């Protein structure tokens, strides 16, 4: 299949981007964000799930939560390029919300092609939120990795074990759980309040989201809750993986651009030795390097999103490139944004740290840069000789 030259980014996407930027500026600017997320600096504070439900409510009224849901399931069925555009703007606002978790769960469910998955997609279209429970205690992003077992019981199936590093679990109505039986990997739709499900919040660095590990104790799953039968889950996860990588990379690009613009603005204003510090090349040049890394990562994101829409046979390769580029970019932009804000940048009061922490979190999600370069090497060079 053929990619359009403009990535499929047309007038509609341009309007969406402008609308989203305006919306987040109004409902999630730096001040509201500080007020919402940074009230309690105590490093020993209990894990909290801090988000503005009213803003999320408004987003659902605009249909932004259902953009990736196929029309057949009652969603907007928009292309990945449009979804990436929205996610990028949410990243630029460091928005605390179930958006990315729900979008990623949507892509996994949409890749399943079963009645159970279609029903769950219908729930998302009806404004339910979701998250993926697909990682084990070691934090492995390999598709085979899970600490949840699925077994057959008299009445159907049961889940036992634990999922780790579940994103925005405190904001989710249901989970898409990866579980293994001897037949292989399956995917199951489990409401967070189902009997036997316990959500244990993690104390995390990032203030703009929540994370949990989730235990499953004889959690009964009926046929309606099977998104992918054991043995069918791997294919669905492989199909959805490019979208997961692309969306988290898009979030990082948005946040990176915010870090760039905020740091450049500070370098234009802050004076030392009678000059704005941006005069000094030791400051100016690394800020330019931030821009160079952002532009590379952002171009990879749109190329990967466009591949998901138009060239699916290349999507995995391009998305893996995007995640590697975006992860390195996020690390560099974060470190430089704090450094060039000087002493202020190191304080709790300066909102720079909100983005720093969000970027650090996204950097490792679904595999860091080294992980994805190793994946790419396997694709382009072939496996390492034994």
């Amino acid at each position, binding site marked *: 299949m053929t990619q359009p030259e403009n*990535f499929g*980014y047309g007038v509609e996407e341009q309007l969406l981007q402008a609308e989203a930027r305006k919306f987040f500026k109004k409902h999630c600017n730096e001040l509201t964000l500080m007020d919402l997320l940074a009230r309690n600096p105590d490093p020993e504070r209990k894990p909290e799930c801090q988000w503005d439900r009213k803003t999320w409510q408004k987003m659902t009224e605009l249909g932004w939560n259902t953009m990736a849901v196929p029309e057949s399931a009652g969603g907007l069925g928009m292309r990945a390029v449009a979804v990436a555009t929205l996610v990028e703007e949410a990243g630029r606002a460091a928005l605390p919300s179930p958006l990315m978790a729900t979008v990623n769960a949507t892509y996994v469910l949409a890749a399943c092609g079963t009645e159970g998955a279609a029903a769950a997609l219908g729930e998302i279209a009806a404004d339910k939120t979701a998250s993926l429970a697909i990682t084990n205690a070691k934090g492995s992003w390999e598709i085979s990795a899970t600490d949840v077992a699925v077994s057959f019981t008299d009445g159907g199936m049961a889940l036992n074990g634990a999922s780790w590093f579940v994103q925005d679990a405190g904001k989710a109505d249901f989970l898409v759980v990866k579980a293994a039986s001897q037949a292989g990997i399956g995917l199951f739709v489990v409401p967070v309040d189902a009997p036997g499900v316990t959500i244990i919040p993690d104390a995390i660095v990032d203030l703009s989201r929540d994370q949990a590990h989730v235990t499953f104790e004889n959690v009964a799953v009926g046929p309606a809750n099977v998104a992918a039968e054991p043995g069918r889950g791997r294919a669905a996860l492989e199909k959805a993986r490019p979208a997961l990588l692309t969306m988290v990379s898009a979030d990082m690009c948005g946040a990176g651009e915010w870090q760039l613009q905020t740091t450049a603005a500070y370098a234009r204003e802050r004076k030392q030795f009678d000059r704005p510090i941006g005069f000094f090349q030791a400051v100016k040049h690394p800020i330019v390097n931030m*821009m*160079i890394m952002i532009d*590379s990562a952002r*171009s990879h994101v749109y190329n990967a999103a466009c591949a998901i829409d138009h060239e699916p046979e290349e999507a995995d390769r391009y998305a893996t490139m995007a995640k590697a580029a975006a992860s390195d970019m996020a690390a560099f932009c974060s470190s430089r944004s704090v450094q060039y804000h000087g002493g202020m940048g190191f304080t709790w009061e300066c909102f720079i740290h909100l983005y720093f922490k969000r970027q650090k979190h996204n950097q490792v999600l679904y595999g860091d840069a080294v992980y994805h370069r190793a994946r790419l*090497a396997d694709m382009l*060079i072939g496996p390492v000789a034994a």
Partner: protein
Amino acid sequence: MSQSERRDTPEQAEFRVYCREWLASHTPGPPAVRLPQSALEIMTHEQLDYLRNWQRAAYEGGLVGCDYPREYGGGGRSDCQRIANEETARAGTPFFPNIVALGMAAPTIFHHASEELKRRLLPKIFSCEEIWCQGFSEPDAGSDMANCQTMAERTGDTWIINGQKIWTSLAQFSDWMIILCRHDRSTKHRGLTYFVLPIGDFVGKGVEIRPLIKMTGESGFNEVFFNNVEIPDSYRLDEVGNGWQVAMTTLLHERGAGPLVTPSAGSLRSDSSSETENAMMLIELAKKSPRNDKTAADDPVIRDRIMDLVIRQKGLSESFRRSRVKGLTDHLLRIPLQGKLVRTEINQEVSALALEIEGAASTLYITDENAPAKGQWPLAYLNSFGMTIAAGTSEVLRNILGERVLGMPKSK
């Protein structure tokens, strides 16, 4: 089918087929002499003649100057030079020698010269009948180019040129030079005026050319001295005192941002054709290079570093694609101004990594019979510093990006 190919317009698709057929029967056989890696290191007339014949043939075949109007000797096409460049790259043809003319002089002439000069000069640039060089840098005007001191004094309808230029590639073969001169010492930028100068007519008659030797051992660039060289006022481009603006047009093209404003003349391989060309070559090299009883391609650190370069190179080519999409860039020059900087730095890292992959064998230079890849990688690495220094050092380009795109204060 390449990615770029799949996005061709009907005109481009048709032209691509034409180029491919033409190249199949016209790509020249190997030369009798060793060719340098680029036009900037042409040392002998034998090398030049071979490359010049090739450019003339390609021009006659319609693959040079494709997007320029027909009245200036161009092909009158629309956004087709890129296609010709991709196809010549794919066919593995030699490069074109008139690189300064195609990449810099032609677009500058197109924008700033009189109608008469355009008709006189452009066709012979494309056909390679006349070779061009660029007279910008001076011993005390490198990164600070506006410090140019070569004087142009007006007497009636003529100008008398005195002074010195340096790092002038191709001067020894050139018929013409684009030259930045000072007509007024009392003001810096506004005291500059831009000319075309028929340097070939003055060699030994007011113009002296002395070769400089590069760290590779190759020659190719020169010092050029002017002693009372007299040229008519009709060789002036744009107004007296507008030399800096004209020079900016030249530099915009030299640094790869030209296609925004001008038909590309196609001297360099286009950005979209290079996808992962260079970095991907490292994969084959690594597979052939022994390391720790296996190959370099089995070393996880080497793999990681190759992939990093592959990704960055692909990112640059996708960025050029993105720069053409309305709404996906916030500043017109943001990506184009990065082109030369990022490309030359990646290329430098690619050749540096190639040497590490080659290991001990990377010590062998071009004339050693045991050198892998005929010693091209050490030569490429040495030459790569020419690219990160010439046409605006990486440091100057970072200043320009920081100042023009991010609004930071000027570092001067």
